């Protein structure tokens, strides 16, 4: 089972949860996150420390669920990097994705809810893929290709390539 935790997420979570349910063929539960995320705010950067958040998620994880994915509208960073779209522990249980920099409005473009939803799905599948032990993939259309630019997210599909899905089945 996958647990989706919302942290300061204003969007609708239902479409994502439905899509993930279909993708991973497992039950997806949704619940608001209980901890206070202000603890992870870096005042100077006005961003939230995603590594610290993932660590906290690992501590709080209910034993009954297989994977936890936090979905947030907050701007995430890790030290050294200016931002991250999300973070996961390879072969771990927990991951986080942020919609903050997936939204066209962040780049001064017109709002595009469908595109935002698509990007969020891709990043969610990508980070969950890491928790299932998947590495970055060189196939340009595979969802496990690493994207450090929002446009790069648009060029990959939301699906695993043949090699990655084979690997996922083995896990």
């Amino acid at each position, binding site marked *: 089972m996958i647990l989706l935790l919302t942290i300061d997420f204003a969007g609708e979570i239902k479409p994502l949860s439905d899509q993930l349910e279909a993708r991973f063929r497992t039950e997806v539960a949704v619940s608001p996150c209980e901890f206070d995320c202000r603890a992870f705010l870096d005042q100077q950067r006005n961003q939230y420390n995603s590594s610290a958040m993932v660590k906290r998620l690992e501590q709080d994880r209910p034993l009954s669920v297989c994977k936890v994915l936090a979905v947030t509208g907050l701007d995430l960073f890790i030290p050294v990097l200016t931002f991250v779209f999300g973070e996961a522990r390879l072969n771990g249980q927990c991951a986080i994705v942020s919609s903050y920099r997936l939204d066209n409005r962040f780049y001064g473009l017109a709002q595009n809810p469908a595109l935002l939803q698509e990007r969020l799905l891709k990043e969610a599948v990508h980070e969950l893929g890491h928790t299932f032990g998947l590495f970055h993939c060189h196939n340009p259309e595979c969802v496990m290709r690493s994207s*450090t630019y929002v446009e790069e997210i648009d060029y990959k599909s939301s699906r695993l390539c043949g090699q990655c899905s084979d690997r996922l089945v083995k896990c």
Partner: protein
Amino acid sequence: MPDQVSMLIVDDETSVRESLMHWFMPEGYRVETAGGAAEALDKLRDSSFDIVLLDVKMPGMDGIELQKRLREIDGQLTIIIMTAYATVDTAIQALKQGAYDYITKPVDPDDLSRLVRNAIEQRRLIRENLSLKEEISSLISVDEIVGESPRIQEMLKVIQTVAQTDVTAMIQGASGTGKELVARAIHFNSKRKYFPLITINCGAMTDTLVESELFGHERGAFTGAQYRRKGKLELAHKGAIFFDEIGNIGSKTQMDLLRVIETKRFTRLGGNQVVEADFRIISATNRNLEEAVKEGSFREDLYYRLNVFNIQLPTLKERASDIPLLVNHFVRKFGTAMNKPFTGVAPHTMEWLKQQPWPGNVRELQNAIERAVVVGKPPLISMDDLPCPVNWRSSLEAEEVLPLAEVEKRHIQLALDRTRGNVSLAAQLLEVDRATVYNKIKKYCLSY
């Protein structure tokens, strides 16, 4: 993994070490960390590393001194220095002593991953013993193009030939004949296949939008441009760019494009830094571009640049013998996707399908089958499952005064054709929301 890249992250801050380690692990690298100089030296004595990310400012021994010591142990080590803005001088000193490069914290994730990738690439090139065996795996097979007719077999041969060269190709064919599929087949069978194929649909965009999409822009290039944005040419670096409906670009873009093709260099909008990119160009058009050249609406020099190798796609009518093969392919494809165990179509239905004119070509056929799979009951698709007369789109006569609803229907179909059935884009062109477009599609039985 015999060829696994190994990386050592040296920083006195635990949070930096850990988060960077987790950030690099999905790359498949072996990542280890050290909290100080002594630990770093120990680790390097114990095992070898390819890359060291080294914080320049640590208590005990400074990064420059540590760099020297690390190099004494392994002279081949690639060292990347991490520094805060205040210590750029130190970083420059480090470069003089042979560091590969330095980054100032915080760094753009794209810059860091590119830097590390380049460093790895450089190491690979240096290690000459690594023979560059071409991987035989093919990411996409030409099998996706279905057909046994002579026209298609001939086309497949042409695709194979073009794929093996780096030549600029132009694909000509009526709408729905599968131009994008051919572009993909060329790209994914070429030696550029591990890099992206970037598509730009010129038919659905204004000229100014095409420019900003192609070249990208710098922060502050225009109102609302808060961040630097890479253009498609830049994203296509080492891969290919596919211009769909190239005949639709305006004269200014034609001129800019010609210059880029000649120099492979350009600047982002609002910037003056020259960006170099290495890409292959594949373009497609459903217009007769030679006519456009004669009329003067398309530059002749650009036309010859783009049309180095020409591939003509047959209409579905010209390869009608492939229809049963295609129909069965689509039935299987959509049946599997929707979990409906269809085995084929009823015999008289296949006859009927073969006789239709299919003005929208393979795409129209594909959409018809997709709909039939949605509404039909397995195991066979019957006539009743094909809801609309497929050839409703009679010739458009300009003089004719049509009922308003008919005009609306045709106009929406036009938008859908232009955007290759992308409802979101069509909605943008029509300046209505997607729900409206979907409702009209339903109402008028439009194909998309």
